[in-house]
């Protein structure tokens, strides 16, 4: 039997069993669109996160105090006495070749108050370079003083939300706020910028790093951000920093350096896995459709024993009967997949129209794998009924 004739034969079957065909197609279409939709959501989330990370700048190194054991290896003997990272460490890193700027960070939470209003927020002590590294800009007023690392000036920048809560409707510039027993003059307000990963800058106070040292009564740094020159060998700088700190900390390499890239890659891996898992959940609905196909096909083989016997009496081989039954399922799944993909695209574009920030998009591989899984399901689950059909004896034609 030629392919064109097989297609026509199957079409006539579909037309004859309209209800059964519609039901099966609905199941498969639902499965396919579920896979596509779930993968799209996962993938869009991943892209969103990636965009957020890339705003940190790809030339950024982050130094954490303490050695993070990433390669197992048991409990380190020397890792127990972690030396603090200090401003002096930050200054010496600044002398390394390839380093453009260094932003030391002290961080803690504290109660900030203005008159009767108060709020518990994150307080960050740093320098202007921090604002640059995190791509924060000043909406009104000015930035941190240039000598933030040398002089403990009692000035503060505040986030937009905090400004709202502590000062509205008054102009905060030049006003005083109190943190613990210290008083600071507000010199600037941060511009609202979409959410930034990790820290919500809209609800933060930023002080000169020296001032934060006094506030928290500690010289230990929470992080050091290093911004590198564009074309520098990142790995080389990382090694230099490790060596420098080891030398400064009496031979102990008690810091961890993470790159913006490594964080992004780790996150990407998580998101890709998550998307795959979610897509798999969608695929389960396809397997359910497959089981339905198998059951209905088994019934159909029983009902069509006489017809199969007739086809064999008229010269159809086992192979041909096998091909007929499998192609019937595959055709059905392909048609249903087209509907499923169409429906998914429609839902996605409607969702994007209503909530543009979602910017949902389907990667090509989601389409391909959804249809692929559907076709695979059809092949697997129609094989058993098809083999049963192929085994029908031509004598069966006389039983009708």
């Amino acid at each position, binding site marked *: 039997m030629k392919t064109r004739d097989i297609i026509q034969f199957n079409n006539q079957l579909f037309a004859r069993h309209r209800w059964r065909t519609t039901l099966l197609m609905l199941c498969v279409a639902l499965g396919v669109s579920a896979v596509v939709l779930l993968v799209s959501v996962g993938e869009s989330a991943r892209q969103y996160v990636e965009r957020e990370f890339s705003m940190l700048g790809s030339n950024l190194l982050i130094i954490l105090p303490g050695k993070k054991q990433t390669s197992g290896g048991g409990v380190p003997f020397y890792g127990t006495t972690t030396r603090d990272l200090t401003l002096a460490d930050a200054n010496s890193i600044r002398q390394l070749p390839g380093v453009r700027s260094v932003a030391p960070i002290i961080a803690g939470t504290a109660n900030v108050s203005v008159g009767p209003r108060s709020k518990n927020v994150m307080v960050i002590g740093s320098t202007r370079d921090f604002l640059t590294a995190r791509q924060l800009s000043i909406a009104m007023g000015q930035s941190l003083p240039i000598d933030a690392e040398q002089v403990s000036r009692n000035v503060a920048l505040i986030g937009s939300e905090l400004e709202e809560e502590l000062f509205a409707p008054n102009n905060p510039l030049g006003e005083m706020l109190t943190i613990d027993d210290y008083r600071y003059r507000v010199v600037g307000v941060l511009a609202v910028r979409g959410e930034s990963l990790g820290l919500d800058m809209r609800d933060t106070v930023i002080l000169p790093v020296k001032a934060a040292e006094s506030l928290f009564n500690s010289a230990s740094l929470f992080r050091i951000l290093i911004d590198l020159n564009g074309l520098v060998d990142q790995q080389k700088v990382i090694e230099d920093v490790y060596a420098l700190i080891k030398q400064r900390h009496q031979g102990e390499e008690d810091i961890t350096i993470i790159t913006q890239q490594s964080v992004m890659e780790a996150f990407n891996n998580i998101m890709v896995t998550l998307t795959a898992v979610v897509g798999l959940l969608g695929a389960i609905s396809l397997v359910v459709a497959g089981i339905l196909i198998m059951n209905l096909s088994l019934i159909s083989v029983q009902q069509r024993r006489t017809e199969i016997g007739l*086809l064999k*009496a008229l*010269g159809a081989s086992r192979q041909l009967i096998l091909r007929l039954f499998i192609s019937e399922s595959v055709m059905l799944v392909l048609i249903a997949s087209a509907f499923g993909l169409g429906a998914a695209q429609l839902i996605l574009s409607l969702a994007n129209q209503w909530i543009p920030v979602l910017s949902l998009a389907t990667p090509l591989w989601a389409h391909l794998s959804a249809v692929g899984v559907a076709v695979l399901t059809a092949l697997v689950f129609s094989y058993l009924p098809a083999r049963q059909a192929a085994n029908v004896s*031509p004598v069966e034609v*006389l039983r*009708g």
Partner: protein
Amino acid sequence: MITLKQLNKWYPSGEEPLHVLKDINLTIAQGDYLSIMGPSGSGKSTLLNMLGLLDVIDEGEYWLEDQPTHQMTEEQRARLRSQHLGFIFQNFQLINRLSAAENVALPLVLAEVPKDQRDAMVKDVLSKVGLLERAHHRPGQLSGGQLQRVAIARAIVTQPKVILADEPTGNLDQTSGHDIIHLLESLNQQGLTLLVVTHDMEMGKRALRKVRMVDGVLSEQ
């Protein structure tokens, strides 16, 4: 063209298999018109299935066109069947979702005959059975006699050498039965070998050769 030698067939039933065909010997020549009669359950249909290569024989030999079909695989027998044999059944066995023409074309479709060639052949046989103007009707829209004529058209469209008919008039009234008998006989006169199992005394008698089956034993009169 057909030779059966010491053919035996058993059906599994309970503890002891049912011996349905017992040492059948039969030779059929090209152009023969053979009727097979006998009481119900005597094995007539079973014999016809054997002759039609629809079922496997358990013992003995079946030579068709000098080929030992008893030594063939299922696929080989399927090919031989589609080349040389045409079938007519008591209950027509037309596929209801297909039109008369599509039903007739089915053996050609299975044999991958090209479409234009196919259409010409279908038209030719439909006009032979007098149903050209019904080509696009579904089986549900045709009478019993017409249905059997469509079935005959399907049986002869591949230009087989032998037509095997199991009670072709069994489901028809007398008039349509007569029509069918005449149609089959005219095909026989054109050289087609005709093997008919029938309860119809008239048709049985008109055959050139009459064989009788009683309890699995064949005898020619």
